[in-house]
């Protein structure tokens, strides 16, 4: 009987991250986007949903943002017409906002938020990376900056080091309300 009780306890413990009700899932000591105190985290959390706009070359682009893992990560999915889709994951390391960008260059860049004097601006700068051997000669992403114009309009500038030069790709984006379905949920049975 004792063994059975211990086994059930072990199974319950091990499955905590998978089966608990949503309200009880968050590990209370860890930071989350659920009730963010930092204005920057609050701004980022407000992105949840669908966005459309154009990239600097006038190409239609669409993005979705979804809070996942009990609102401890904001997942960004970006599609630009004619290009492959890319993912980034925004999260908090203590009080510091971080992003891990999985770039179609084949490098994976972690960026860290920098203090901003403008509460409407959240800027991430290069922290470290995998598959970037030389920051001088290898093309890679260097930064991402969000400007929250109003609840339905943002501007995003992706910093890029390309051909040994730095430049920014500016996206103007508008929130999509009608028909926005972030299909990260299960659609099969």
């Amino acid at each position: 009987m004792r063994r059975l009780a211990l086994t059930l306890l072990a199974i319950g413990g091990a499955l905590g991250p998978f089966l608990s009700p949503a309200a009880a899932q968050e590990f209370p000591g860890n930071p989350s986007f659920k009730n963010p105190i930092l204005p920057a985290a609050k701004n980022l959390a407000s992105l949840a949903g669908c966005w459309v706009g154009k990239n600097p070359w006038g190409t239609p682009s669409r993005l979705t943002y979804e809070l996942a893992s009990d609102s401890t990560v904001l997942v960004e999915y970006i599609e630009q017409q004619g290009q492959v889709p890319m993912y980034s994951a925004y999260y908090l390391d203590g009080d510091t906002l971080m992003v891990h960008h999985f770039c179609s260059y084949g490098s994976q860049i972690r960026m860290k938020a920098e203090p901003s004097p403008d509460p409407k601006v959240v800027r991430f700068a290069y922290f470290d990376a995998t598959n970037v051997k030389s920051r001088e000669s290898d093309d890679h992403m260097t930064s991402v900056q969000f400007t929250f114009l109003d609840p339905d309009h943002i501007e995003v500038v992706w910093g890029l080091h390309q051909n040994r030069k730095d430049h920014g790709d500016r996206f103007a984006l508008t929130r999509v309300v009608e028909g926005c379905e972030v299909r990260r949920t299960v659609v099969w049975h």
Partner: protein
Amino acid sequence: MRRLGLVPLAIGAALWLLPIAGGAQYLRQNPSLRESTATDVKNLRSLAGCWKGRAPTGGDVRLFYQLVSDGTAMIEYLRSVGTATSQFTVYYLDGETLMAHHFCYYGSQVRMKGEPSADPKQVLFKFHDATNLAADRHENHMTYIKLTFVDPDHLVADWGNFDRGKEYPSLFTLTRVVEGCKGLDFSTW
């Protein structure tokens, strides 16, 4: 039927991906999950698509895998049916080493590194480092992922979980879903 169902999706994706200038394109010198000939990578990328199965306690789970960022990263969404949250993990290569960044709903973000396996049907990731986890690692967190590729349509995923001072396995038995697997579908907005 399977082929017919996928054709409209493929046409839509092809139109959307007609090449247009600008942005980040895959750099040949970087490692790619899609290009690699390593057995563990080939196994991992074969997961692309939808899976369903059971957690150890019998609860239903759904998983979705997609190659993104020009085949250099694979995202995984895991959802326990009946709960409100999903968990998100990204797999990628650091040189020749497989990596996983797991965004856990514990609120910690655990990076795991692929380990050599004597069994070609197994891919094992072990804890590498984490954010929001104290150095002594006494708090609850994920410790490993062991994927056993039984055959092309059957998978056993074992998620190691450190809970209250002990490490527990969590075995999920999964079957590939073909009919109705839509994954991410942006055609509605």
